[in-house]
């Protein structure tokens, strides 16, 4: 049996999104890394406060779109021009104007797939279990609570982190430990 890897977080709830973003900014400036925010709806300035790098989703989408475009052009040319040449009203066998609708649709479809699955992949979703779920109070993150999660190495002292979060206005601070997903 493998040794279990333990994952430990300090979770802090804040009263309003503004206080949460403010606290996240200050914690980042103090050098904390790997933090995450949880709120019932998108936070304005949340990504900037966490210091997240620019999203890679646009490039995945672009790659998807280009893949779709090439696939569609190649597929239609192969099918209608080479494999089973179809004479439609005397038009050339390779008629790009006729290829455009399918090319457009596949580009959009693949770009959308790229965005959808790219986002899921980058966010490591679906995620049926996370250590934060160990805290009953954390359920408010999906209704009215604004939470900040700060990871700390198992076995180290987290009281300093907890005190700082309290000083930044956290209404409650709790520690969760569990198996890493």
């Amino acid at each position, binding site marked *: 049996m493998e040794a279990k890897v333990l994952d430990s977080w300090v979770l802090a709830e804040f009263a309003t999104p503004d206080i949460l973003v403010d606290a996240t900014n200050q914690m980042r400036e103090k050098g904390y890394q790997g933090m995450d925010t949880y709120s019932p709806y998108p936070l304005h300035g949340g990504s900037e406060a966490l210091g997240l790098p620019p999203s890679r989703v*646009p490039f995945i989408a672009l790659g998807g779109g280009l893949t779709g475009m090439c696939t569609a052009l190649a597929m239609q040319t192969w099918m209608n021009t080479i494999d089973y040449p179809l004479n439609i*009203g005397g038009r050339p066998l390779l008629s790009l104007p*006729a290829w455009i609708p399918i090319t457009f649709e596949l580009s959009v479809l693949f770009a959308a797939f790229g965005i959808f699955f790219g986002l899921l992949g980058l966010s490591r979703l679906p995620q049926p279990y996370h250590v934060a779920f160990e805290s009953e109070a954390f359920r408010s993150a999906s209704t009215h609570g604004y939470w900040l999660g700060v990871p700390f190495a198992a076995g180290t002292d987290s009281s300093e982190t907890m005190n700082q979060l309290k000083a930044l206005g956290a209404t409650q601070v709790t520690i969760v430990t569990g198996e890493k997903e």
Partner: protein
Amino acid sequence: MRPPALPRFEGGQRLWMSSAGVGVVGLVATGVGALLDVREALYGYLFGFIYWLGLCLGTLLLLASFHASNARWPVVLRRTLEVTGATVPVFLVLFVPVGLGMARLYPWVTPSPELGEHALQVLAHREPYNTVPRFLLRAVGYFLAWGLVGHFLLRWSVRQDTEGSTRWTAWQRRLGSGALPVIGLAFSFMTLDWLMALDATWQSTVYGIYVYSGATVGALALVVVAGVATRDTQHFGRLLTPGHYQRLGTLLFAFICFWAYIAYSQYMLIWVASLPEEVTWYLVRMHGGWGAVSWALILGHFVLPFAVLLSRELKQRPRALAGVALWMLLLHAVDTAWLVLPALSPSRAHLPWTALTAWVGVGGCAVAFAVWRSRGMYPVPVGDPFLVHSLQVRQP
């Protein structure tokens, strides 16, 4: 947060006087050109007229759409949209040469036997619609619709500056959304009457939307350029944030795609059906010099700006976005010329010099009128309850 106190716009004296001067010189030069070659001059004039009228109406439709959608972020741009949309009276005056020259522009006025029997039959069938009095009456109707809507949207907004009552917001919302079908239909019929009729029999049901999409690209580009040009002045450009430019750039991107989508749809349907009376319009534009112009439009009006505007960062940088906007204003001129001028010389691409003088002439007069009209007004609608929202816009 209180809106920053921008003073009323008192400058612009030199700008409107020099624009008016350039405009008059351009129009006089076009008039001289008409003495030399009246047909060329009329087509050139129609090109210049349609270009600037398109920008004016694109702006008006954009303004009405913003009202219809209760949009808050563009409030800071609105005075500029309102003033531009209220330049319709200039175009009523400038329409006179088109009205006078209609017999030389539109084949249906005096159909010549050279058109062939079929075309003559089609024109005879359309006679109840195509009569000179009805053509002129419709034109008056279009100008009345655009002019009244533009006038009241500006006037009520200006009233709110001093009175501050939210009643004026409600009135603008009602007029803006209620008038959209009317000014939209007037725009669509205008494109049939003044542009599509350049060809005796050619017809396309998506033509009005095509002209509209191009005009909206031009209108958005114009707003971006105006915003960047007034960045260091006491005008609205001073208040624009990267969030505003991002939104304007996104809209510009969307309408460039829409333009390409409509242009392709029209082409594809005609290409697939391959009907003799429909394909002529494209045949003229697919070969020789006009063919090169068509390729320039596909690449310059769609492919290039599409690729450039994909960048989110670029859309937030005012100067870079203004560069793209200037390029689109130029390509919109190519697009307008591509619609009008092949009717003048189908066999070879030809840009009469009167087209340039008319472009300068009509543009100078329209800009002069807009600047002159906006003197003494606040550069932004200071009484609008949503101005604060607009000023706080951030990047989405």
